[in-house]
C-alpha cells in the first residue's frame, strides 16, 4: 500500500497563478450549456449535487467501453486493469484528504453510507447504556437519524451543541456537554443549510482531550476547501463523490487505521472475507474488510477523474474564487428589501439561504425555475435548523467554482420577479 508523501504531486498539474478563468472552466461542464424552459441554465443547487466536468464523463465512458471487469478477483487482463484503476482512485482520495495510508480509505456509496458504517460498526461496539453522543444543532437529517436509532437501541443519549443567531456553534456549551459519558462527537464541517464552517480542529482537540473520537461530515466541505485529515486529526471523515464533481453512488469514509482495525465488519459479502469454512470466517484486511460485494468500480474511477480535475485547477484557487462570489452574492442579496439571509456566520462558504417577506420558499423556487434558475427550497434535511430560526423552510442558492457574477445577477433579477408576482 502507498504511503508516499501525499502532497508530492501538488504542482505537477500545471496550476497557473493569476486570474481565475471561469469562462474557460465553464467549457469543461457540458450541462452548463443546457437551456431550461428556454432560458440558459443558472445552476445554483450545488450543495444538493454538483455538475460533472467532461473528463469525469469521459472516464466513465472509457472504463465501461474499454476495461469493464470485476475487481480483485480475475487473472485476466481486464480485471487487472479495472483493479488497478479502482485502486488508483483510492490513492487519489487518500491524497485529496491528506491521509497517509490507502488502508484508511473505505469506498462507500456516499456520506450517508459512511456514517451508517461508523454507527453500525463503531457505534454498536463502543456505545452502551447511559453513554452520550454529541452532535450539533445543524446536522443533516441522515446524521441525526443514525445516532437516534443507535441511541434508542443502546439506551444512550444524544446531546446537541446549540448555535447563535448567526448560525455559529456555541463552543462554551460544547465544552459543558463533553463529559465522562461522551463516547463520540459527530459534527458537520460545512453546514448545507447555513454555510457555516465549524471550527472542527478546536472541536476535535477538545474531544481528544477527553479521549473521545470525532467524526466529521465532509459532504459539503470537501468540494469547497482543502481537506487535511492529518492536520485536523479527526478520527473519521466522510464525503460524497457526487458533490465533488464526481458521479453519484460513490464516496469515501476515512478512518484512522487503528480504529478501523478494531471495528467489526459492517456488511458481509464477497471481498470482505479472507477465508471461509463452516466453522470460522477470517475477515479480509483493511480496507476490504468494509467493502463487501462488488463495489462501484466505474464510480470510483469517475471520482478519481474528478479529483484529478480539481487538482489541475487547485482547490485553494477554487475556494478563493468561490469566496469572492459568496461575498458578491451576500452583498447583492442584502440590498433586496424584505430579504433575510439565514446563516451569517463569520466563517462561511458557498451557501446563500434566505427567506423573502412572507413569500413561501416553494413559490420562490417555482418562479426562479421558470427563469431557468435552479435553487433548492425546503428545510434541506435540517429541520432542527429551521425550527431554530422559526421558519418552515428557506430558499437556498449554493455556489460552485463554475458559477459567475452573472449567475448571481440572474438570481437577483429572478427574486425581483418573485416580488413582482406577489406584489
Amino acid at each position: 500500500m502507498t504511503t508516499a508523501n501525499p502532497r508530492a504531486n501538488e504542482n505537477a498539474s500545471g496550476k497557473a497563478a493569476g486570474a481565475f478563468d471561469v469562462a474557460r472552466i465553464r467549457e469543461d461542464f457540458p450541462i452548463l450549456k443546457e437551456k431550461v424552459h428556454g432560458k440558459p441554465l443558472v445552476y445554483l443547487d450545488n450543495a444538493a449535487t454538483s455538475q460533472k466536468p467532461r473528463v469525469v464523463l469521459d472516464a466513465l465512458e472509457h472504463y465501461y467501453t474499454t476495461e469493464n471487469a470485476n475487481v480483485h478477483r480475475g487473472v485476466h487482463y481486464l480485471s487487472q486493469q479495472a483493479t488497478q484503476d479502482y485502486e488508483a482512485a483510492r490513492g487519489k482520495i487518500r491524497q485529496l484528504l491528506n491521509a497517509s495510508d490507502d488502508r484508511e480509505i473505505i469506498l462507500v456509496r456516499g456520506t450517508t453510507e459512511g456514517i451508517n458504517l461508523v454507527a453500525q460498526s463503531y457505534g454498536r461496539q463502543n456505545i452502551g447504556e447511559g453513554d452520550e453522543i454529541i452532535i450539533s444543532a445543524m446536522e443533516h437529517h441522515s446524521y441525526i437519524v443514525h445516532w437516534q436509532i443507535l441511541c434508542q437501541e443502546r439506551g444512550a443519549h444524544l446531546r446537541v451543541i446549540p448555535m447563535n443567531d448567526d448560525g455559529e456553534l456555541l463552543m462554551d456549551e460544547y465544552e459543558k456537554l463533553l463529559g465522562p459519558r461522551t463516547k463520540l462527537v459527530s459534527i458537520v464541517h460545512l453546514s448545507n443549510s447555513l454555510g457555516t464552517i465549524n471550527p472542527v480542529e478546536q472541536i476535535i482537540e477538545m474531544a481528544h482531550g477527553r479521549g473521545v473520537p470525532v467524526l466529521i461530515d465532509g459532504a459539503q466541505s470537501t468540494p469547497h476547501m482543502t481537506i487535511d485529515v492529518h492536520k485536523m486529526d479527526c478520527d473519521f471523515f466522510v464525503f460524497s463523490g457526487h458533490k465533488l464533481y464526481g458521479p453519484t453512488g460513490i464516496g469515501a469514509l476515512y478512518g484512522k487505521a487503528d480504529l478501523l482495525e478494531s471495528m467489526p465488519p459492517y456488511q458481509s459479502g464477497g471481498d470482505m472475507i479472507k477465508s471461509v469454512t463452516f466453522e470460522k470466517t477470517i475477515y479480509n484486511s483493511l480496507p476490504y474488510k468494509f467493502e463487501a460485494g462488488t463495489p462501484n468500480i466505474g464510480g470510483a474511477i469517475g471520482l478519481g477523474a474528478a479529483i484529478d480535475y480539481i487538482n489541475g485547477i487547485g482547490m485553494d484557487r477554487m475556494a478563493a474564487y468561490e469566496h469572492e462570489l459568496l461575498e458578491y452574492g451576500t452583498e447583492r442579496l442584502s440590498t433586496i428589501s424584505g430579504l433575510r439571509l439565514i446563516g451569517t456566520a463569520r466563517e462561511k462558504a458557498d451557501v446563500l439561504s434566505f427567506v423573502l417577506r412572507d413569500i413561501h420558499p416553494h413559490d420562490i423556487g417555482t418562479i426562479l425555475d421558470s427563469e431557468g434558475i435552479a435553487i433548492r427550497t425546503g428545510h434541506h434535511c435540517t429541520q432542527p435548523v429551521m425550527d431554530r430560526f422559526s421558519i418552515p423552510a428557506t430558499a437556498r442558492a449554493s455556489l460552485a467554482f463554475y458559477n459567475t457574477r452573472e449567475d448571481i445577477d440572474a438570481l437577483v433579477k429572478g427574486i425581483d420577479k418573485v416580488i413582482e408576482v406577489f406584489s
Partner: protein
Amino acid sequence: MSELQELYQEMVLDHSSRPRNYRKLEGEHHSLEGYNPLCGDKYTVYLKVNAGVITDIGFQGSGCAISKASTSMMTESVKGRDKEEVQEIFDLFHQMITRNPESDFEPDEKLGDLEILSGVAEFPVRVKCAVLSWHTLQAALEGRDGMVSTE
C-alpha cells in the same frame, strides 16, 4: 398568459394572502393536521359534520401560496356538501391539476372557483401542494385522527 401568470393568478394570490374560513371552529368539531414534510406546509382543517353534511369548516396553518389558496378555496367549495359530493369534486379537481396540460380542458361546472387552480397542471411538482388539504379533509371525513402526510 404565461404559465407562471396562470399559476399565480390574482385570485390565487388573493386567496393565499386573505384566506377564507381561516379560523378554528368553536364547539364540538373534528380536526386533523396535514403536513408536507418536503416543503414544510402544515395545515389543520377543522370540521363540523351533521347528518353526513359539512355544516362548517375552517383551517389554520402555513405553507406556500398554492397550498394556502387551494385550502381556502376548498373550504368554500365543500361547505354544505356530503362526503360523496366532496369526493366527486376532489376527483374532478385532481383530474384537472394532473391532466396533460397540452390537451383541451373544459372545466366541469361543479368545480366552480376551483378552476382557477387549473394552472397547477403545468407544474407537476406543485400538485402535492394543491391536494394536501383535500387529503386531510378526506381523512377527517373518514374519522381518522393524527396527522396526514404527503410522503
